[in-house]
């Protein structure tokens, strides 16, 4: 069988590597019976937000998609991007394991199979100074990536600005924005050190990226083939979590090589301040979702 898999991000990105690994494992496991072509960099013309229905309708058999694009389809996908809820990769993993049945259900209801998810490295603040207190955020123009981050930053006195990722370097170089909320990995990918001097690891959140598959394609597989897919998924998932954890130290080293100041942890007072600012955002989200959210959150907080 020949399958097509869509990925909006470059093949060299963390999730691009995971997708390639999954394809190779699957070819190995199935002894060449299943051949997956991964189309990186949006080469099939799909953006992540299109993947949900493209896979559900069987236009493509597989895709790798960050949950952040699917908030409008079901707000449960916001869970992993909630601010300061799961600061470390280990926390993110625990939250993921608790929420996995919900993710599986939403995808199942829409004609697809959830195979596995891997994290983005935790996001922090790139800027021309360290951010270590509430006062440091006052009046700073920060590029954000979603509604929650925008609301949160407004609440703490910063000026959030939403821009396309491709406009970020130009807007930084003209001082139209002062700082960028993204992971160390995201900034290293576009050599943000040419434009910024500091990175503060505030551990905002670690969003998830899922690999999902068309249900008809899945149902058409023999039991042995299904087992091959699941085995490849399991191996790729393990690799993805490992890569994300490893990438943090690696990216910090690259940043320091390029004369950046990396602040690996912030004062407890500032963490408490950020958590306090985030808590209404989290409860507002939980209210919107209802019982499903309460169940996951109370289990997570125990």
């Amino acid at each position, binding site marked *: 069988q020949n399958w097509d898999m869509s990925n909006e991000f*470059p093949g060299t990105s963390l999730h691009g590597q995971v997708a390639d690994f999954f394809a190779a494992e699957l070819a190995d496991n199935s002894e060449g019976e299943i051949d997956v072509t991964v189309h990186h*960099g949006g080469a099939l013309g799909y953006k992540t937000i299109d993947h949900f229905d493209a896979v559900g309708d069987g*236009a493509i058999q597989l895709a790798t998609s960050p949950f952040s694009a699917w908030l409008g389809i079901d707000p449960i996908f916001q869970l992993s991007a909630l601010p300061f809820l799961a600061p470390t990769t280990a926390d993110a993993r625990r939250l993921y394991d608790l929420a996995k049945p919900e993710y599986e259900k939403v995808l199942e209801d829409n004609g697809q199979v959830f195979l596995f998810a891997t994290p983005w490295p935790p996001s922090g603040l790139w800027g021309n100074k360290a951010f270590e207190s509430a006062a440091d955020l006052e009046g700073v123009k920060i590029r954000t990536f979603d509604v929650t981050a925008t609301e949160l930053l407004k609440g703490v006195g910063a000026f959030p600005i939403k821009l396309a990722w491709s*406009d970020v*370097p130009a807007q930084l*170089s003209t001082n139209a924005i002062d700082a960028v909320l993204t992971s160390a990995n995201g900034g290293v*990918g576009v050599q943000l050190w040419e434009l910024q001097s500091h990175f503060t690891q505030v551990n905002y959140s670690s969003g998830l990226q899922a690999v999902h598959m068309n249900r008809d394609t899945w149902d058409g597989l023999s039991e042995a083939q299904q087992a091959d897919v699941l085995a490849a998924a399991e191996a790729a998932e393990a690799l993805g979590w490992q890569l994300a954890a490893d990438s943090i130290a690696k990216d910090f080293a690259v940043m320091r090589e390029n004369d950046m100041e990396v602040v690996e942890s912030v004062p407890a007072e500032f963490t408490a301040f950020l958590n306090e600012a985030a808590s209404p955002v989290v409860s507002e989200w939980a209210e919107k979702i209802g019982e499903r959210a309460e169940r996951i959150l109370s289990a997570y907080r125990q």
Partner: protein
Amino acid sequence: MDALLAAFTVFGILIVFLSAGLWVFASIALVSVTSLWLIGDMNLARIGTITAAIVNRYAAAWELSAIPMFIWMGEIVFRTDISMRLFRGLSPFVNMIPGRLLHTNVMGCTMFAAVSGSSTATTATVGKITTRELFGRGYDKSLAIGSLAGAGSLGLMIPPSLVMIVYGILAEESVARLFAAGVLPGLMISGLFTGYIVLRSLMNPSLVPGERQRYGLRDFLGAFLDLLPLLVLMVIVLGSIYSGIATPSEAAAVGVCMSLLIVILTGQFSVRLITESLMGALRTSTMICVLLIAAAVLSTTMGFLHIPADVAAGIASLNLSPWGLLAILSLFYLGLGFLLDGNSIVVMSLPIALPLIVQAGFDPIWFGVYLVLMIEMAAVTPPIGFNLFVLQGATGYPISRVAKAAFPFFALMVVGVLLLAVFPQIALWFPNLIYGP
């Protein structure tokens, strides 16, 4: 199916539809549907799902929104005395240069390229302003059309550039460096075009109408005043980008607002101007955008048929020497350029071409510039060449005539590619100067 055979089949079907006189956008859409059905072995439901998703993605792509706005700005300039003043104002300055006003195309495109990130917007806007004036004054039509087709593609080489942003993101290279690397090659291409026009005009004076006259200091002063409105417009649009007030894609809206302001200040504002410029802008930009959407569907089709990736993988398996690799890749891109538009070419081939190029010891920033030049060439080669389409729409001439007029400029770009390959410093010197090696 073998990738090359599939590629030729797609090409063949396209030629059939185009020859039958079907609209170009419909031909591209139909060839996509037919290829997915015949070669991709897909059913109609799946083809429909794929097509609708891509159409929705590109019809509502904010990245394309600058195109109708830049074209509207061109329509406003075209319908007021700003464009006539441009020519009157340039006359004394270009009077001594063989070819005289023919240089307005190359100069205009080079300047406008610094404002716009796409080659179609550059060609359409400058073309709207210059073709009527040049034809009316009796300049050689082929040279006018050809220089416009060639110079319009500078929109991608001279920053800002949409294709370079795409390349930078996919190759994980600094977009700022890429932009800097495009400046000198852009000016080099512009210089080659200018030199060619000078040469042709010297060899055949009948290409240029005999209106040479003597100009005094007073004339130059008056000429400067004539150029002022357009200079102000350019300074403000460029200034808005480089001061960070507007992003490159927002600069088009700044341009529209400023041109309206100039029109009001010079007392030329009328309801009729607004309605006519709007409807004119709509006709041109709809024609261009619907082509871009159809081209996106074709590029998705090629992706599903695995054509670019398979061919690139085939090249990889040849284990060529660096120069052999570069030569083959150039032919490959030239071939893709017949059928695809710039962004698609970059996106579909890069994952395989870039590692090969880096392994062979070429600089990825340099390769980005090289690739943009290849894409500029694709824009002037039939059957799918966007600058040709834009000029066909603007002049009403058949595409064969437009393509023929553009050919010498295509050849000059080949010279540009060779120069770039032999002297990579043309691209790398400037970014290294600004950002360090």
